[in-house]
């Protein structure tokens, strides 16, 4: 080989290598509304749902804006402790596009179950990922978390943390080994909603090998329940998250039939945080749910 052709070969090789490098840097993420290509890892991220905040915390990145309903306490402490301060961009139902745009984000992560009607507007502000948050189950959420990690170029770090998480879950599952049935429900002054194994908290309970008192295969995540449905379900353990101070449970507990329920005879009616168990939905929230279950069930 002459010197000249060797030089040419070498040049070509470097060009090809650098092209390969460029390709390696661009993250390509399939999301619910298509495919998003990100040349550089984003740094100013606005998230419009709570479970995505959880994923960002795991990746060690602080969002600049969150649709937090104007209440910072909606973000659960285990997540809040891991991220810096953020600006509220309004409610999850109708986030203020103006507030989102004002933060000049380079990535927006929106809920594909809630923000379809503003997807076009969001893409005009910044590249937008549409991912499942509303009605997401435990396993689905882990996939969503990995997608977010890929978008942020933090896959390795997140996978390492995921490994820890899965060890914890497996460990707890081994220890639980209970034949009792477990039910989580949210309550307010308007009624009670049982979270089935299709819901987030329900799927965490199922993941830990704990039984649900509900017949499986209904496909519905949240079942509105009156007192009669609760009597019929009659779980051995009832975890409830309160949305309002006064709830229907206060009334039901005065009903003579209340005594039929298993949870009326044992200390197995447990009040938990609705923020953690119902609103948050993320890996860190799942750990908190699992540890809270452990603190009550394990001797």
């Amino acid at each position, binding site marked *: 080989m002459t010197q000249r052709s060797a030089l040419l070969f070498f040049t070509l090789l470097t060009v090809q290598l650098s092209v390969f490098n460029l390709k390696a840097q661009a993250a390509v993420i399939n999301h619910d509304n298509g495919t998003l290509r990100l040349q550089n890892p984003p740094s100013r991220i606005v998230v419009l749902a709570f479970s995505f905040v959880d994923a960002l915390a795991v990746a060690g990145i602080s969002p600049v804006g969150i649709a937090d309903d104007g209440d910072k306490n909606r973000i659960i402490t285990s997540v809040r402790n891991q991220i810096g301060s953020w600006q509220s961009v309004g409610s999850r139902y109708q986030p*203020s596009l103006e507030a989102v745009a004002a933060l000049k984000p380079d990535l927006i992560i929106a809920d594909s179950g809630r923000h*379809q009607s503003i997807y076009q507007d969001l893409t005009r502000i910044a590249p937008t990922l549409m991912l499942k948050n509303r009605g997401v189950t435990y396993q689905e959420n882990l996939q969503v978390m990995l997608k977010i990690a890929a978008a942020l170029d933090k896959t390795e770090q997140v996978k390492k943390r995921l490994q820890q998480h899965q060890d914890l879950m497996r460990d707890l599952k081994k220890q639980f080994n209970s034949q009792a049935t477990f039910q989580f429900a949210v309550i307010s002054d308007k009624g009670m909603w049982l979270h089935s194994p299709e819901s987030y908290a329900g799927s965490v309970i199922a993941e830990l090998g704990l039984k649900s008192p509900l017949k499986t295969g209904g496909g519905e995540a949240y079942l509105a329940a009156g007192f009669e449905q609760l009597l019929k379900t009659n779980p051995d353990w009832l975890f409830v998250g309160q949305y309002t101070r006064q709830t229907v449970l206060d009334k039901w507990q005065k009903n003579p039939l209340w005594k039929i329920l298993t949870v009326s005879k044992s200390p197995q009616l447990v009040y938990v945080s609705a923020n953690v168990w119902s609103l948050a939905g993320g890996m860190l929230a799942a750990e908190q749910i699992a540890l809270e279950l452990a603190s009550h069930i394990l001797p």
Partner: protein
Amino acid sequence: MSRYNRILAGGFSLLLFLSLISLFSGAQSLTVKTVISTLINGGDADFIINQYRLPRIFIAVLTGIGLAVSGVLTQGIIRNPLASPDLMGISGGAGLSACTVLLIRPDINISWLPPAALLGGFSAALFIWLLNRWHNPSPARLALAGIAVSAFLTSCINFLLVLHPVEVNSAMIWLTGSLWGRSWDYIWPLLPWLIILVPFSFYLAWSLDLCALGDETAGALGVNTQRLQIMALASAVALASVCVAVCGTISFVGLLAPHLARLLVGSRHKLILPAAALTGALLVLSADTLARNLAPPLELPAGVLTAVLGAPYFIFLLHRYKGW
């Protein structure tokens, strides 16, 4: 300048002033200079000004005009101060069908929404018309029937949204009316309808005045009353429906705007129509501006704010109305 022209000019300047306020206020505070330079050259705040605040102002004004004109026509034809597209169930019908279309085909092109809403609006109108043929309506009965139909249709929307809980935020839009997430994309489906229907309503105004003298007198003066009634009602239903297709059931504008206009300019339709259109535009624009600025960045549905104004006025009307 006559008193009437002064009122119109005053209303128009108020509308301009309010549009400016709406343009300059929001979750993000921008200086006057930034806003003006963004309007001309775009730049950093391009989305906030040109893609967000500006289209919302236009949509608010357009739907305000549409709902108000629809209200004037309904009240003029039915000769009933309690009549309006939302209390008659027309908005409910339009909302129900637009909402159904969106639930079945979430990815549908939004220019299909107005035709879908028209179908629903006309079906609701037809249903009320049949109800009224069945029993001889007094104005109060008509209003009651309308409210019942309206409540029924709203409950159908509610039922649909409980059954298919895919989009909670669209629920807010269809049930209370809101301009959230409405950009230029929504102006184009709305504008052609209004460009045809609003002038047509003005054309009908002359004859509507004669109708106020009673059907027989109007007939003697050369008005084909039946044809006029059908045309006026049809354009009222169409106007209300296309507005609902874009921003949901913003309540009470169709009731309130004609009444306020009548207070200001008397009862001749040629005079009421422009005044009511201005009032309607003012109502929806101020409701939306308030909705965006009461507790930023939280947004309220504009329909809630018009209801805060409208519901007490409706009760006042019921109280004053002696024709039971």
